[in-house]
């Protein structure tokens, strides 16, 4: 299991353990963490699992996949630290990852 911390827009923190191989989005959805909608179910077809990842972690994550930035264009308030959490696979390398949830997804 890998520790992931989800911080809601209002500062509310949820640190949970997520199984390797799941996505950061699935970790949130399966643990009922508010703030991630994931309307398309992880198909990179919507932008409702949008998270912000601060610089220190952002650079340690595997690079964005092709098309991820295109989807992020359609997110709520995207910026240069934005990621789609369905595209971040949970692995031992990201143990302790912190993601910040936007004010809203839609």
């Amino acid at each position: 299991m890998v520790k992931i911390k989800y911080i809601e827009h209002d500062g509310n923190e949820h640190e949970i353990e997520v199984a390797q191989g799941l996505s950061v989005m699935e970790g949130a959805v399966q643990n009922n963490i508010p703030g991630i909608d994931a309307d398309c179910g992880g198909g990179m077809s919507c932008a409702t699992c949008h998270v912000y990842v601060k610089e220190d972690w952002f650079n340690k994550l595997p690079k964005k996949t092709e098309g991820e930035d295109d989807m992020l264009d359609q997110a709520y308030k995207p910026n240069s630290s934005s990621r789609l959490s369905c595209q971040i696979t949970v692995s031992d390398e990201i143990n302790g990852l912190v993601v910040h949830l936007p004010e809203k997804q839609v």
Partner: protein
Amino acid sequence: MIHTDVLIIGAGPTGLFCAHQLGIIGLKCEVVDNLDKIGGQCIELYPDKPIYDIPAIPECTGEELTNNLIDQIKPFNFNFHLSDRVQEIKNESEKWIVKTLKGKEFLTPNIVIAGGVGSFEPRKFPVENCKKFEGKEVLYSIKDKNIFKDKKVVIFGGGDSALDWAIELSKNSKVTLVHRRDEFRGAPSSVGKIKELESEKKLEIFTKYSMQNVNGNEKIENIEIKNEEGQSKIIDADYILGFFGLIMQLGPILEWGLNIDKKMIPVNTENFETNKKGIFAIGDICTYPGKLKLILSGFHEGALAARGCFKYARPNEKYRFEFTTTSKTVKGRIGIKE
């Protein structure tokens, strides 16, 4: 008032196959969808993406799947009401009166909600005071391009809609294109054209900027855009256009007294009826223990919901199960003569 046996909300694969099943058992239906075309997410989100898990079809695209489903229900001549949305439902003596945004009215014993994750609506600017200008000077789609003639237009977005309109409107308007990053996701030829127009000073481009504020009382005077370094610019504007793609919203469905669980509607798995008699939910919008959000599950759910509709549409008849391979009645319905 249109009288029908079943009103289907949503023309995605699940709604289409449910319509097929209704046709097979001899019921009539009408289909309403907010999009301007048939196919739901398949056609709006991934028309070109291959799908590999439709039974007996090793590979097909969202568009191919949609076209095949449309072909399959052609014999029934069902009506589609596109670019419209069901707004209000009212119970009246065992039936439902259904009203749409465009003012159509249906009388039906059955409503099948096959609404996916909701209806597609344009993503709007996240800036609060944009709201008061929406529909007037802040627009998310264009109905009449002539209103922009000789005006100052600021277009936000990096996809084809943003680029195509920037190119088109730059002929007769002062166009500024603003996008949150340097790369545009529109067609390469459009990106080339945009850069060419920029170098000819026929339009202005600001990348890595996003909307910060709109200024003006009765009308928009100017807008403020800001980049991540905190630098801002003021741009004079008569019209603001935002092309940020579509989001999905459940909308009025939330107000119909249905049980809702995490944006989904709980159903029983015998006939996919909701907590309201005569209202069924199938496809991505329904939930039950073991629910899989697969197109094939939507097909199954639609087939059972169709049978569920039968008892309310034909209360005095007994439903008889028939195979399409052997039943003359069924073959007659799909126009096959023996």
